[in-house]
């Protein structure tokens, strides 16, 4: 399963979650699946990073200390509208889901989730690009 069918380089993924365990476990899983991964547990470093580098996919938690994940989502879409944002959250209400989708999130995964589910979500995003 090629991570990025029509380009030579692997898909770049940024993961932001203030729970280190989420980053710790997602990073090797995505690496194993052939992605280039950077992880952040604080939103300010992640914000700084997205100004420097274009990521194909951003995975972010919604509720964190400091910056609200919703702001981060908005900023990512401002800097790089093509980036696919997948939101993870422990508070899976339809309200937050609607809001994040309105702000341009591609998909939504509720915690706790299966590793396969989130990789699947990224794959779906990649496929959606292929169809456009």
């Amino acid at each position: 399963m090629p991570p990025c069918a029509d380009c030579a380089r692997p898909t770049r993924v940024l993961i932001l979650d203030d729970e280190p365990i989420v980053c710790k476990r997602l990073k090797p899983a995505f690496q194993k699946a052939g992605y280039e991964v950077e992880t952040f547990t604080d939103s300010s470093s992640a914000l700084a990073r997205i100004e420097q580098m274009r990521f194909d996919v951003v995975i972010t938690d919604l509720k964190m200390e400091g910056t609200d994940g919703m702001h981060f989502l908005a900023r990512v879409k401002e800097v790089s509208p093509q980036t696919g944002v997948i939101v993870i959250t422990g508070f899976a209400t339809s309200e937050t889901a609607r809001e994040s989708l309105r702000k341009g999130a591609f998909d939504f995964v509720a915690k706790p989730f299966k590793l396969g589910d989130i990789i699947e979500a990224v794959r779906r995003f990649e496929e959606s690009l292929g169809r456009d």
Partner: protein
Amino acid sequence: MRPRSVWELNMVGRLKKFFSPRSSSQPVLPFTVLFKKFRSILERNNLILELMADMGDKLGGEYIFDKQYIMDITEKISDLVFKLISDLCVMTRVEIVDLFVTFERIQFEIQEELAGRRAVPLTKPVLLLEELSGDCREEAGNKFANLGEIRNTLELPTMDGFVVTTRAFFDFMEANGLFEFVEQGLAGLDLSDDSALHALGGEVRKRILTGAMPKHMVLAIHAALGIVCDRNRGRPLFFAVRSSAWGEDSESSFAGQYESVLNVPGKGIVEAWREVVASIYTPEAWRYRLHRGYRESEMAMAVGCQLMVEAEVSGAMYTYAPVAPEQDAMVISAVWGLGVAVVSGIAESDTIFLDRQPPHRVISVEPGRKTTKIIGDQAGGTALVDLPPERQDAVCLGEDSIRRLARAAVMIEKYFRRPQDVEWAFDRAGNLHILQSRPLNVRPDQPERHMPNIDNAALSAQVLFSGQGTVVQGGVASGKVHVALNDDDLNNFPFGAVLVSRYTSPKYSRVMRKACAILTDIGSATGHMATLAREYRVPTVVDTGVATRVLKTGDQITLDAIRNVVYAGTVKELSDFEITHAEVFEETSEYRMLKRVLKKVTPLNLVDPGSEFFRAARCRTYHDITRFVHEKAVESLIDLSEKHQRVHDRGSKRLEFAIPLGLTVIDIGKGMNIPPGVRLPGIEQVRSTPMKALLEGLLESRMWETAPVAVDLGSFMSSFTRTFSSSMARPEDVGRNLAVLSEDYMNLHLRLGYHFNILDAYIGEELNDNYIYFRFLGGVSNIERRSRRAKFIADVMEGFDFRVEIHGDLVVGRLKKLPRQRMVGRMKVLGGLIGYTRQLDVNMTGDEMIDFHLADFMQRIQILKEVSEDAPVCRLRPADPSVDPG
């Protein structure tokens, strides 16, 4: 939770009318309230079981969860358990003090776990090695907790001994005011001043070497020594005394930082303990900790004391040869005598490279020139002796020893899912002993460079199937398939193979240490085998539906049980990545926290309601409390109805049956139709649709083969009773069965010996209100047979459209929103099923019996016209999917 429907509200109204006490001589709480509480206990009971299953699933490694999840879900469970007890309080109207006290204790313990307050372990000052496991890190330190796993879970040979715990360390340090001394010393210290740290360390070490030993500690050491010496009469009783500190042998190895004292006689143990503990404060060790940011409060040391091996050959083994990571090799270093020389790298040793894959072919042997060896001195301590010339260049390990060592090392690596640095020894009789094992850090400097390899490798490998079934234990494994269909297949299970089978079964624990992975066609992630697979950390996927069809004995495959993909052949890069890069889920603090919390939630200690230990004060977990409350609620409702009978029974309308079974029937509204003069109501007096269907199902299905078909409820029920006495139930177990009925509703608690059925059903004209909830638990036979019976019950119910969950031997089936006639048909099937299963676990001698009984039951149940006329809905799942084209 199911929303309250109109019928229920109506029912409450009817209840109110019915049970409002006419006589004021006896104060009776309205039955309405009581029954409402009873129903709410049932609902909470089910929710608690579901949440427990949910938490159990998270241990497998397939899910990403954080601490917040653990906090949230434990709070939910705590809340439900508290309300459960409160409901029981209202029902029984007695203050259940014991239950609340127990609850508060468990809740407090869980909160302490969540807050991470475990500083001073509440343990004995000394633990024997057989008492250790991986959960003892706080008490025994990493090194000996790991050794405990190697000894007690993997059952690899280790020398007898005991651990002086960190508790003893804390007691000693506190008794001598040493923590305070260190703290004050550090406060006034310039850390860049080496000589000051040196001086402070020297003073602390002196105080440790001369400080007073707490009496209880000395007594405990002597007691443990006595036990170990008694068990090992006839051999020299010298000990290896080694450090096992917090954090040692974890991410930071602390290798060589702390003292070990070898060949110590029993009477020298206490002094050796002091020496080892004092080594905490050598300038090198102290600096090492300071550099890595360890705080003083994170320093605690357990000390292990193990009998010495009279070693012929000793050494170390790396399961990943660090010199050639792209070569798939392991490396052994070996010397004659004790292995100190290898570990400290002071003398030449033999170097043997061998294949990582079974059968572990030797790749190369480089003999070292071994002029001397270290041995245990008869007077204690060690001595260096010269070796005769003919042994100096001889290789010290033969092929057979190499292979045995390799298997043990691979087993340890597989279990800890990290490359291992194993210290080992062979004694004169050629027996292998594992001395210790620590994780080996072989992560390459530039991991990113290796990434494309994994991707390409996984891409070019053929995917046999993916995303099928449920991951029970994550991990990656590669090996040859061994399909096990019967016990013989297990007897010759090859080391390092992938176990492939139809069903999950706890009997596979026999081969779990040999198996590198497990795949089954059918099974649940919460069964007993799943628990064992997690304990042995064998990558396992159950319920794939296709494993035995797709895979044949001898096929080489690779299972990625993190992403749930099965590849053809060996995907070496994938296995390598998993073992060298991936986070070991079991080492994360979240995993360990969830596991510790679960220990206080899920184990069920109160299994037998007839036992004298079935008491509130005996509850040790939330599961115990839940079970206890449920049992008491049923009892209380029965007691209550008996009381009501005295109040209400004026002749014409009876509220219960007087039948030998003691099935108490509480009619809460048109559930029974008893004409005047009928003392003993039979089945013809039952009006309740679900109850009538169930009883008719029992009779018409003729599943009660050992007893004559009963003609009325009384004699029919007495056949129940005969069955009891023949299936080991005590008389007092009979007679606490309860049915609450109305025209459309039934709530039935039916204990048949140790089988325990709960049925809650509503069958009326409004399709959307209709449901059946069926729960089956227990049995007296062994767990394998009970699991098979559970599987059989689940298969039958699934055949009739129930949504079924199995948790061990607990089966829960739910069915909703079918039209009245179909619901009645299914209720009759359940009647047949209850009849059929009553002696079933005795018959469940093999896995093949599941399919046999399924076919038998499905055929015999056709006698019910509701089933035979409703053929499209009842499907018999084929016994062998390989012959099923669909």
